[in-house]
């Protein structure tokens, strides 16, 4: 658009201008299209928009367009299309009704009612938007809990499986049992002789109290269990205590056993 006639004029002001005595000295920029302009003009009639005087509205619109063009506003095409249509509608409303209405043309009264309806609808939606904006809006007017409690999630692991699976799991190994022999793997043990030899080899280093578990050999993969190493070492140690080569002590039941080489005179 060219230089605005009234710079900074917003829509509300434009409406007021239209309402105030149909002055029509209005910046076209204030309107969002012909329907918007029609609504502003219709509001100036101050009647129920569904009972609008459409002929009067048409006059107001055409006057607006004439004025705008006189002021050399470049009018968008849709304003002119609407003007032409309204002029046509007005002429049909004013002409005497033909005796037999033409079937391919809707009655002008129906067209007028539809126009009034569209204007009233836009008006209703404008008001609805305002009413929504005026509602107590979350985090603008009303506020939720600022510090919600964390919900802690407790996870349960629930086994899957049904009774049939349980029966099948029972039958399977029982049926397998027919053609195989169960031989538990014999426990590998740390031989006592080796334990004694190991302990005797350690003897020169045992001049301080040393924990039995530290003295027992480290477990090797595929070898005897750690418990067996400790147990055999303990047996060897007891023999050597009896022979006077070692001292052993334990401060409480199940606590660590400590060994020390007997001090030689």
């Amino acid at each position, binding site marked *: 658009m060219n230089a605005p006639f009234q710079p900074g004029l917003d*829509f509300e002001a434009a409406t007021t201008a239209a309402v105030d005595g149909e002055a029509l000295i209005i910046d076209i920029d204030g309107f*969002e*299209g*012909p*329907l*918007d302009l029609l609504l502003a003009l219709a509001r100036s009639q101050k009647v129920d928009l*569904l009972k609008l005087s459409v002929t009067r509205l048409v006059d107001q619109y055409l006057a607006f367009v004439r004025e705008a063009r006189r002021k050399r506003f470049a009018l968008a095409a849709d304003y002119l299309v609407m003007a032409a249509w309204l002029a046509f509608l007005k002429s049909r409303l004013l002409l005497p009704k033909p005796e037999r209405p033409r079937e391919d043309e809707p009655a002008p009264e*129906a067209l007028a*009612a*539809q126009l009034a*309806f*569209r204007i*009233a*609808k*836009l008006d*209703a*939606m*404008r*008001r*609805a*938007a305002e*009413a*929504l*904006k005026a*509602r*107590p*809006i*979350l*985090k*603008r*007017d*009303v*506020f*939720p*809990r*600022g510090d*919600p*409690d964390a*919900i802690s999630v407790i996870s349960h692991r629930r086994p899957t499986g049904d009774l049939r699976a349980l029966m099948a799991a029972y039958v399977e190994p029982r049926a397998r049992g027919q053609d195989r022999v169960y031989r538990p793997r014999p426990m590998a043990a740390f031989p006592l002789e080796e334990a004694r030899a190991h302990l005797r080899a350690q003897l020169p280093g045992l001049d301080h109290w040393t924990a039995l578990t530290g003295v027992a050999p480290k477990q090797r993969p595929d070898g005897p269990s750690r418990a067996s190493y400790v147990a055999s070492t303990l047996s060897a140690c007891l023999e050597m205590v009896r022979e006077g080569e070692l001292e052993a002590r334990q401060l409480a039941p199940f606590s660590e056993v400590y060994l020390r080489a007997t001090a030689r005179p």
Partner: protein
Amino acid sequence: MTGTDDAERMVEALLFAAAEPLSAADLADRLPADADIPAALEALAVRYQGRGVELVQVGDRWRFQTAPDLAHLMTREREEPRRLSRAAQETLAIIAYHQPVTRAEIEAVRGVQSSAGTLDVLLELDLVRMRGRRRTPGRPVTWGTTDAFLVHYGLASLSDLPGVAEMKAAGLLSLDLPPGFAVPDPSAASPEEDPLDADEAHDFHQDFLGDGERSD
């Protein structure tokens, strides 16, 4: 046996603690089976009436919120809300009161073509969603509001939209019929609409945001 007072305390604690509104079903999940949840909600609503914190229903969910007249105190809690443009406000109102509604119908009511960004903004704010496709030539996508819309405006249901009953009585909510015709209820299922495929809804959403101002 869970007494009404016990149930009321439990509902009070859960709603107070929750970050989001809870439905009666959410509450039922956590309360003993014999708790009378509607009675507890009713009793709580009465108890908190006129207090600084109130119990309100939004959608089919319940939440505590501060009383609207105390908004001025909450200066520090306030998030600078994204201001909707006038076009977006109107578009949102038209969708809310006419759903399911097509883009062409929205434009017909407003009398102007919508700019591409308007629906994008509403979509991005999760205020509107695609509901389905109209069973008319071209099968245009129809739009409706979301639960977040109800939560945002503190509405219990679409029938609580301001002035909806009067507009309906005046025939103003029909989309193309002259006044005086029966108007469908926006909260009722609309028969002449096909649901979107799950994929379709997703793709469309992506595409739609794609042309617009996707924020990434």
